[in-house]
């Protein structure tokens, strides 16, 4: 769930735009360069974007009796890195802000920061660390995408707590007190959904490995030896 239209006052909404816009521009630059160099990755880029479209359209009921939706950005983050994920995330957030009144145009910067930048960044870092540690590929994808999803909502929580501290002026105590209140909604609702997202993302990766592992090797997502092993003994 994104921060709703109009729910971040000055200076917060401008601040998040100021942080997000450079990341989006850098992502557009990287995406253009990548597509120019390797035209054959375009379908994979479409798949990563489409996955975000599907997952962020599904509002799921959670254990605490409220609904939220997964983000789906983990796949893009693992294959293309956080910068390009920010571009794909922005497209989805724009669609939802314009046609669904879900999220908003003034809060777009904040929502891009949480769903398009920090969430994918965390997913990417966990993925790289996990692969370096030689863990099972699908387990690493699960962890990376689940924590990426969950982090997105922790950042949303922090953005709201910064804008609405418990005291009138922003103090650490006031921030933490509000953080707890918003976390009760977002972090708790999202935890089971993050597990689902991790599981579904791992499954999607299995199919990508099955049909197109050479491109993953070329993009340096997995090493050739890992690809051979995965195809030999598909989980």
């Amino acid at each position, binding site marked *: 769930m994104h921060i709703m239209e109009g729910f971040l006052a000055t200076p917060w909404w401008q601040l998040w735009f100021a942080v997000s816009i450079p990341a989006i521009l850098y992502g557009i630059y990287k995406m253009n360069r990548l597509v120019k160099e390797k035209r054959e990755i375009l379908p994979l880029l479409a798949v990563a974007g489409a996955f975000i479209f599907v997952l962020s359209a599904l509002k799921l009921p959670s254990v605490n*009796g409220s609904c939220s939706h997964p983000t789906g950005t983990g796949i893009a983050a693992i294959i293309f890195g956080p910068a390009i994920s920010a571009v794909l995330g922005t497209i989805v957030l724009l*669609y939802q802000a314009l046609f669904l009144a879900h999220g908003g145009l003034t809060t777009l910067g904040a929502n891009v920061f949480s769903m398009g930048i920090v969430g994918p960044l965390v997913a990417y870092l966990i993925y790289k660390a996990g692969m370096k540690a030689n863990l099972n590929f699908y387990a690493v994808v699960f962890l990376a995408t689940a924590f990426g999803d969950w982090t997105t909502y922790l950042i949303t929580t922090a953005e709201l707590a910064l804008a609405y501290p418990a005291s009138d002026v922003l103090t650490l105590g006031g921030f933490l007190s509000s953080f707890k209140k918003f976390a009760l909604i977002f972090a708790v609702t999202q935890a089971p959904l993050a597990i689902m997202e991790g599981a579904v993302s791992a499954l999607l990766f299995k199919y990508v490995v099955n049909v197109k592992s050479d491109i993953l090797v070329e993009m340096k997502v997995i090493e050739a030896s890992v690809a051979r092993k995965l195809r030999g003994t598909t989980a």
Partner: protein
Amino acid sequence: MSRKLELIVLAIILIFAAQFIFMSLTTDAEYAGADGEAEGVINDITGGTYKPIAEPFWEPPSGEIESLLFGLQAAIGAGILGYFFGYYRAKKTYENELGYKGKSKPESDMPSPEGDRHSL
């Protein structure tokens, strides 16, 4: 092909679904959106003084229309996913199993008259 991962994912989804059915039968939870609940907390913290600085300039006129647009979003995504997985799968089959690997254009071995190509 082993189906272990599919079974694990299915199990996670089933646990989730069972939990949902149980909870919705035994409690009167509303299953409202988390963003709407956050609005309630904002009202609590500010004592109801906060007015949104902007309104969405267009809102789906009803819950039905909203479902339509969310469904459309998922359908667009699912369509693209299905198209490319089908494309890759067929490509792999033709390349590996039917032995077309390395021959990107089979007809280039045996040039056919222009007219034939159109009749395909």
